[in-house]
């Protein structure tokens, strides 16, 4: 549907593109067909990233594909030892309905924006934006999540590390949509922390997620806002796993030595590839990561020690 030429609102900001076509499918099949017919149509979920770009006139799409009427995207269900999280589930619902299965993602979700943002915004949108500062992303990587994407007539699933390929770049083809995320149910404590310039509504300067698998005695870390993509820290993972094994801490459920925590923080910081930008310098990010990594591990380990 073609609208009239650009109009500028009272604040001098454009409220959208010229002749914006607005597509409102009510099923996923219809949405994928529309995406195939209009590969340039920009998907709209909670709009908390997209509408800001539109209001600032940083983006003038020819067409938008509203995903908010598609029930299939707003559902989640458990299957095997995974949760299949529809791309359109809001953070508010994620926290209240599935937080117990996905504690790391729930902790991160609670830090995103404000209640008004969490009522609209989705994990699918965080993945769509693929910002290195996306707070839902480190917990997904640490938990070993897989992303399910689909186009008309086909779908594929890939590990998170194959999905996000650069700052604001992902493996999604123009005719594809993000459909769901498959996240293993937590097999032990998970934690997340982030550093910003103030407490609320900020873009992370550095973030860190950690998942403990109490069964296989494995620990996985993920680093956000300190590289072109969300990063793993295999050296830190191996170091902490073997120190816990050698000291017998898994069975004794004993505290982790300060020297071990410190070394762990250093290895995480060394695994990061931060840049200097308006939000922080490279050195600050590295320092902050060492601190929050040690702190996050302590929180998760406290949870492990308290668990029977």
């Amino acid at each position, binding site marked *: 549907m073609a609208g009239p030429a650009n109009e500028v609102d009272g604040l001098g900001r454009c409220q959208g593109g010229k002749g914006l076509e607005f597509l409102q499918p009510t099923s996923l099949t219809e949405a994928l067909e529309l995406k195939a017919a209009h590969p340039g149509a920009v998907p709209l979920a909670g709009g908390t990233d997209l509408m800001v770009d539109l*209001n600032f006139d940083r983006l003038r799409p020819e067409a938008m594909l509203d995903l908010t009427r598609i029930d299939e995207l707003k559902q989640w269900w458990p299957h095997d030892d995974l949760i299949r999280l529809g791309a359109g589930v809001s953070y508010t619902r994620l926290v209240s309905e599935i937080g117990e299965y996905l504690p790391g993602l729930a902790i991160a979700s609670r830090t995103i924006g404000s209640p008004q943002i969490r009522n609209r915004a989705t994990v699918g949108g965080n993945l769509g934006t693929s910002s290195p500062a996306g707070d839902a992303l480190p917990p997904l990587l640490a938990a070993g999540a897989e992303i399910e994407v689909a186009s008309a007539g086909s779908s594929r699933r890939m590990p998170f590390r194959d999905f996000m390929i650069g700052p604001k770049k992902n493996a999604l083809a123009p005719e594809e949509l993000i459909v769901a995320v498959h996240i293993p149910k937590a097999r032990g404590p998970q934690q997340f922390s982030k550093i910003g310039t103030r407490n609320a509504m900020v873009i992370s300067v550095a973030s860190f997620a950690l998942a403990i698998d109490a069964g296989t005695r494995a620990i996985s870390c993920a680093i956000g806002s300190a590289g072109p993509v969300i990063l793993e820290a295999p050296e830190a993972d191996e170091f902490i796993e073997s120190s816990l094994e050698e000291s017998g801490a898994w069975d004794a459920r004993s505290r982790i030595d300060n020297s071990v925590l410190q070394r762990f923080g250093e290895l995480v910081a060394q695994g990061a590839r931060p840049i200097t930008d308006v939000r922080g310098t490279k050195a600050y990010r590295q320092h902050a990561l060492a601190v929050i990594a040690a702190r996050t591990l302590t929180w998760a380990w406290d949870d492990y020690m308290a668990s029977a």
Partner: protein
Amino acid sequence: MRRVSLTVNAVEHEAMVEPRQLLVYFLREQLGLTGTNVGCDTSTCGACTILLNGKSVKSCTVLAVQAEGTEVTTIEALAQDGDLHPLQQAFHETHALQCGYCTPGMIMAALDLITNNEDMDEDEIRTGLEGNLCRCTGYHNIVKAIQQASSEMRSFATK
């Protein structure tokens, strides 16, 4: 242009809107409900907070066409027959506003908080208001007003 039908403050409306029209401008300009303010247009300040199907959202980042079939509540729905809502009364009594620009958004955000959370302490109220900025009051009296209104609304509900 597109047709949308939605319920605003318990009144059904049908209107033609441009697909790019923001919900806040639809409310203000087409329905004349100017109680909802625009402070930033970028989802930061919270002045435009309304309830969409009972949940607080920032109406500067929702398109009017997306509100099709929804129930919208704005600040205008709160006072009944000239009687202020307990939240409005508490804001008045505790001096929780100066210029008043943030107030409609604060009250709508607070309404969602009070409805969805039992007995919030000061910290929880402050965290719950993280999406609403006030340049005048320093928040202290806003928190007090919400505490007062919250206990009044609860005792009223249990009577």
